[in-house]
């Protein structure tokens, strides 16, 4: 089964998309500024904790345990939600999840929903489905609102509008908000003025719309509780004001006990935004007669996750708690931005998650979108060895498990030949001679500036020429003299 996720279905390969992104000077500036600011905040605040490495180990162990017994914890979660008066739906794929949610909205006769920032709803492309059935979905997370009004795509899963700056945001608001009606005819450039506009625009929707849609950061098996972590309080309003709440949650989000949250709460905000704790942590267990929504549904989403779980090496990608620390640390993401990945989950974690969740042409370029510098692994609070999984996925591609072999055949031949040469000293000496001979016409004064077959390198960079004598030749000569 091939699961097509989001706009990835039509996205060009990473290297092509990256080429265009790299030429966008505004994007380059915004990305550099934003990733450096968050990264520095994260480093300072993580540095405060002397037991950070122990926390990482604990979080990693919890997640590994969870993956092993995921079926049991999910069943426990389900029964506890039902016990508390909620409804549980299981969705095999995006299509099922979309239909479940749309039908629930329609059952309540609502033509509108308000949304807490949720990556899973983007993963299943919920908004276009609702729109096709005449239901308007309003994003209430400030950055998601900016993205929605700007008809743009998220480029980061903690800070979706990371790629645009406040001046660009003002332009979007001026274009899309009824500012005069809202009593803000002369919208200024300062962030507090922009925040005020968003506040007035959203407040009216919070009070009117009867159905809320959310995701969740964690689902606690022992209590059947869901947890949303956010910075603005807009999420809290979506979770408490509507009559009906529908939460769409990936099956990997479950944690065994309430106690386990201690470790994750300690790490998530520090890793995500460089804060000691998140300004808003909302925890709810189905419905409560005295307050909040009267009806609660949780849609548990697979959408390729059990297939990832079956791969012992690749499954650590499911440990992700979506802090995006790897994105902020990644030198590739920091230059290309998130759109080049053509994926709901961009950056290093996206590069290991997307190709596993979906088997398709485009995402095959993602495991190569990394120099394997290791900054992502170092930043990851749950110790996902992203470089290791990238190599694993590359090997699957090479072995043709996920790809058409022909695209790789020239490279394959070269790699096989080199491996053969390296298995014989005699062959290696011959290969050295041949290489030296081959570079002859292209080298000038010890440097190769252009060479067929090496254009991808020499288009922008020189290469040192092969010297007259290799190390092994020098050594041989030296031993003879002795």
């Amino acid at each position, binding site marked *: 089964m091939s699961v097509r996720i989001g706009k990835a279905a039509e996205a060009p390969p990473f290297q092509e998309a990256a080429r265009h992104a*790299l030429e966008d000077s505004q994007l380059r500036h915004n990305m550099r500024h934003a990733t450096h600011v968050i990264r520095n905040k994260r480093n300072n605040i993580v540095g405060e904790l002397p037991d950070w490495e122990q926390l990482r180990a604990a979080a990693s162990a919890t997640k590994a345990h969870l993956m092993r017994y995921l079926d049991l914890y999910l069943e426990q979660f389900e029964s506890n939600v039902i016990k508390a008066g909620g409804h549980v739906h299981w969705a095999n794929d995006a299509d099922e999840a979309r239909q479940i949610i749309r039908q629930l909205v329609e059952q309540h006769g609502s033509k509108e929903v308000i949304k807490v920032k949720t990556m899973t709803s983007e993963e299943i492309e919920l908004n276009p489905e609702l729109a096709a059935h005449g239901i308007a979905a309003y994003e209430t997370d400030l950055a998601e609102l900016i993205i929605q009004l700007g008809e743009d795509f998220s480029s980061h899963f903690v800070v979706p509008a990371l790629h645009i700056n406040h001046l660009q945001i003002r332009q979007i608001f001026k274009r899309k908000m009824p500012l005069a009606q809202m009593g803000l005819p002369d919208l200024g450039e300062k962030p507090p003025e922009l925040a005020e506009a968003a506040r007035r625009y959203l407040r009216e929707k919070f009070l009117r719309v009867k159905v809320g849609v959310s995701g969740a950061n964690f689902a606690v098996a022992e209590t059947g509780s869901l947890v949303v972590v956010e910075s603005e309080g807009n999420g809290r309003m979506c979770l408490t004001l509507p009559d009906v709440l529908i939460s769409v949650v990936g099956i990997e989000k479950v944690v065994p006990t309430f106690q386990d949250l201690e470790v994750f709460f300690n790490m998530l905000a520090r890793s995500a935004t460089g804060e000691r704790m998140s300004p808003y942590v909302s925890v709810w267990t189905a419905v409560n007669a005295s307050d909040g929504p009267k009806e609660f549904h949780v849609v548990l989403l697979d959408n390729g996750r059990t297939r990832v779980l079956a791969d012992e090496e690749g499954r650590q990608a499911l440990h992700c708690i979506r802090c995006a620390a790897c994105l902020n640390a990644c030198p590739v993401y920091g230059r290309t931005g998130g759109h080049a990945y053509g994926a709901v989950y961009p950056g290093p974690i996206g590069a290991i998650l997307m190709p596993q969740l979906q088997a398709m042409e485009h995402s095959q370029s993602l495991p190569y979108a990394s*120099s394997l*510098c290791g900054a992502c692994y170092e930043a990851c609070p749950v110790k996902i060895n992203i470089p290791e999984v990238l*190599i694993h996925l590359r090997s699957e591609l090479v072995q043709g498990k996920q790809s058409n072999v022909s695209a790789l055949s020239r490279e394959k031949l070269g790699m096989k030949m080199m491996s053969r040469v390296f*298995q014989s000293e005699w062959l290696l000496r011959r290969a050295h001679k041949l290489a030296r001979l081959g570079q002859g016409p292209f080298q000038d004064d010890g*440097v190769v500036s252009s060479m067929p077959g090496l254009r*991808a390198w020499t288009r922008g960079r020189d290469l040192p020429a092969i010297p007259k004598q290799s190390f092994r030749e020098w050594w041989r000569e030296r031993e003879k003299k002795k």
Partner: protein
Amino acid sequence: MPVCGQVLGSDDPTTGRPITMLVSLFIGCYNDLLFPNTGKAVVKVLERLGHTVEFRSAQTCCGQMHYNTGYIRESQPLLHRFVRTFRGAEVVCAPSSSCVAMVRDHYPKLAREMNDPRLVEEVDQLVPRVYEFAEFLVKKLGVEDVGAYCPHRVTYHPACHSLRGLKLGDIPYRLLQRVRSLQLIDLPEKEECCGFGGTFSVKNADTSQAMLADKVRTILDTQAELCVATDNSCLMHIFGALHRGRTGVRTAHIAEVLASTEGEPFA
């Protein structure tokens, strides 16, 4: 302060005599062909410290390029060859943090995937005896001052495999700080990857070059004459842009700086 030419190796605490070792070199395939001066410099430094150096000519490549690009099957015979070649070696020293990271981080796992218990055992015995050159000097030999002289303004780029892979920390700095007449300038944003990444540099050439452009900018900001690292692969990449831009800044492996003396200066 020790004088150039003096044996600067560490002493055995019980006998008080200098420890001499038989050091087996692993040069690495690209150093062998493209950067023979690095290997020569390693020999020079180790012999200056009183050690005996051997080069087992059956050695070829650690298999990193194959492994990292996903050609795991093609890297397996190279692991086999490495283990065979260095069987019985007292210590193996390699002037490449990425080759050593391949051996240390990936060989144990790779050997286990090859379903050969004897090979696993051999790998587990060999891996702790394989050292990166700078690490070997400081951690194994306990030497920081190798009697070098290098009258240049130098900046040090911590290669990703030395920084996050081998976690060399301040080891290279401690060695460079003891080089006479060398002016060491701190490289801004030094922990950023230069964008080489093996086949990444050609598969994603544009992104690779964007990363390189920033690395070169920070190098030029230091006004250094020389950019030094523990890995010629990163240095080859950095050289590529420094030379293309005719910046006049050169690159050198740390071994070449440590081999430099007043009598035979780095040139």
